[in-house]
């Protein structure tokens, strides 16, 4: 019942002319950005965040716009994967495997429309599950004490370390760098300045917008200059083929399975579209009656699975962000930071205190998914034209957009040097195989982590055993150990099996 009344109040917000307009703009801009080769959802949201902030919109409208860009970009990523064989980001890699062979057979139109339908189903199933489970999780999380929050955060970082990137220690070190960056500035509890070295520009802390633009906008720009491809990429023609009802019937179970798997992977902290699309593709390949032999040669199941999966994950990642205030992926970490900019603290109380934001966002996602399907089916050709923008023009535009965004918020030229320095730092991290998402997660969660730790110890009067004194926290620490130990144990078992086989 709560869900129904919540949703109807949400639709009342989302259907306001301004918000409806912003959903459409966000979805359109997101698809455009997502279809640019090399720029994925996280870069797109990062580059446009300060501009959205500078527009002076109310928080729910700004969030609706940014979320539209986020899942729109998740949608658009498939276009360059299919037509160019160049994925926009890690989440779109699996889409190239069967999408590009289809396009080479002259069925690009069919591949694009089928993947649009799969994305639509993945996104819609995710938002339905979110409306059902989000409030439940929130009403459970309301009972969390500060000590439980500390445990939850430990679990989030454990799952991040275990599931993201190749080297867990590097992922952890990246998250720690984010946490350390977050300690710069005046400590809110005591008024003591930490690590400011007397520089007035950072007394209030390093602005979240600057970290995001630096790490995800400028670092991407430097990376694009480094790997700049001189030869022209071959853009395959879209042609006249289109998805048939039979195709959809063939993949209906694939889509359903992949959407569900994608959603649950998205909910886990730290894992997002890239893990979801890899897992769903692998699952379908294993379930294939032909033993997966046609996968990689243009199998429509192999195309539908990762697309349903990564859009499901994009929705799933929103759940912990909205209900716990703990983002499920790098991109939702940016959305969470965006809410903090508006002085809205996401978390279990948001469904009660700021229902217009929580439910408005959810309702806008129903509308956005339909809009994306409608935009994408007839206009694939227009988006495909974006792929022909040469990199030599695209690269400077990133800097121009980033500068507009950063400057327009505070009007401080010092910030422009900061984003260049952070961009260089982010580029070095990428070169050394550090994932950047943990850094931003650490940065966003730093304040919350420290606050909850200090609050917990204030409650106990300095007794550290409060951290392990509730059922919730013990379960969470147990899960944290499991999520780190199980992959290690599996890898060791696999290695010993290979050893005995050989």
């Amino acid at each position: 019942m709560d869900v129904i009344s919540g949703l109807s109040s949400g639709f009342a917000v989302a259907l306001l002319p301004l918000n409806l307009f912003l959903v459409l703009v966000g979805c359109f801009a997101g698809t455009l950005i997502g279809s640019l080769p090399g720029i994925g959802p996280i870069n797109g949201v990062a580059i446009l965040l300060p501009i959205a902030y500078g527009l002076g919109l109310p928080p729910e409208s700004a969030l609706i716009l940014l979320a539209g860009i986020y899942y729109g970009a998740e949608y658009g990523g498939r276009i360059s994967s299919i037509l160019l064989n160049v994925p926009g980001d890690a989440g779109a890699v699996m889409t190239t495997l069967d999408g590009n062979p289809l396009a080479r057979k002259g069925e690009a139109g069919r591949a694009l429309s089928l993947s649009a339908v799969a994305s639509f189903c993945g996104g819609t199933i995710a938002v339905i599950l979110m409306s059902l489970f989000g409030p439940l999780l929130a009403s459970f999380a309301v009972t969390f004490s500060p000590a439980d929050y500390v445990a939850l955060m430990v679990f989030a970082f454990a799952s991040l370390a275990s599931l993201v990137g190749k080297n867990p220690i590097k992922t952890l070190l990246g998250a720690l760098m984010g946490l350390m960056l977050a300690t710069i500035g005046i400590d809110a509890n005591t008024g003591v300045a930490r690590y400011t070295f007397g520089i007035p520009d950072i007394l209030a802390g390093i602005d979240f917008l600057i970290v995001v633009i630096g790490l995800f906008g400028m670092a991407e720009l430097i990376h694009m200059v480094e790997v700049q491809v001189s030869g022209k990429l071959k853009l395959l023609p879209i042609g006249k083929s289109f998805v048939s009802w039979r195709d959809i019937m063939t993949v209906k179970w694939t889509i359903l399975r992949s959407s569900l798997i994608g959603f649950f992977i998205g909910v886990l902290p730290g894992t997002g579209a890239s893990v979801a699309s890899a897992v769903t593709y692998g699952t379908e390949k294993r379930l294939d009656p032909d033993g997966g032999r046609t996968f990689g040669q243009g199998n429509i199941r192999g195309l539908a699975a990762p697309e349903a999966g990564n859009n499901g994950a994009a929705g799933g990642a929103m759940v912990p962000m909205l209900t716990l205030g703990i983002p499920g992926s790098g991109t939702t970490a940016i959305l969470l930071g965006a809410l903090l900019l508006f002085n809205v603290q996401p978390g279990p109380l948001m469904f009660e205190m700021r229902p217009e934001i929580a439910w408005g966002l959810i309702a806008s996602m129903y509308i956005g998914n339909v809009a994306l399907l409608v935009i994408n089916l007839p206009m694939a050709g227009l988006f495909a034209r974006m792929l022909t923008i040469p990199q030599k023009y695209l690269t400077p535009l990133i800097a121009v957009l980033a500068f507009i965004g950063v400057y327009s918020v505070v009007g401080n030229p010092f910030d422009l040097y900061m984003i260049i320095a952070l961009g260089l730092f982010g580029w070095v991290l990428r070169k050394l195989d550090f994932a950047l998402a943990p850094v931003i997660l650490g940065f966003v969660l730093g304040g919350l982590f420290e606050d909850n730790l200090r609050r917990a110890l204030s409650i106990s009067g300095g007794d550290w055993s409060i951290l392990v004194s509730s059922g919730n926290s013990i379960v969470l620490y147990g899960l944290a150990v499991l999520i780190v130990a199980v992959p290690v144990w599996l890898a060791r078992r696999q290695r010993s099996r290979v050893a005995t086989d050989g």
Partner: protein
Amino acid sequence: MADRIFAAVVLAVVLGYGIMAFAVIKAPFQYDPLGPETWPQILTVAAALCGLYVLLKPDVSVMTMTGGTGIRLVVTIGLLAAYAWAYEPLGFIVSTIIYSAAMAFMLGGSAGRAIAFGVVSGVAGYLIGAWLLDLNLPGGVLGDWA
């Protein structure tokens, strides 16, 4: 090797961070059991352990880069810094025209096209940013009538 150098730099930074956490940061008075220094102290220990691990077990051995790419990157950073430096004094339109044109030219565009691209991005960027979206962009030398 690249990993080791990076880890060494990280450890040096963490050392400085830790010295401040353990010796410098102090609240004049506080009511809570944890002051402003405890959290940085915890982070110092954790980051030092991770840094040591990477130092002892590096996995990225070399950072390969051809000379041409290196020069391109240096020029990119230089252009960005110049763009940041010129942003306020010259204003958005002029600095963006110069930066965009120079960048497009450096990345292989012909001179004519690069200049045309620069002019379009500077003027269109200002029209969309400052007029349509009402964002705060520096007018600079064109300040009076831009």
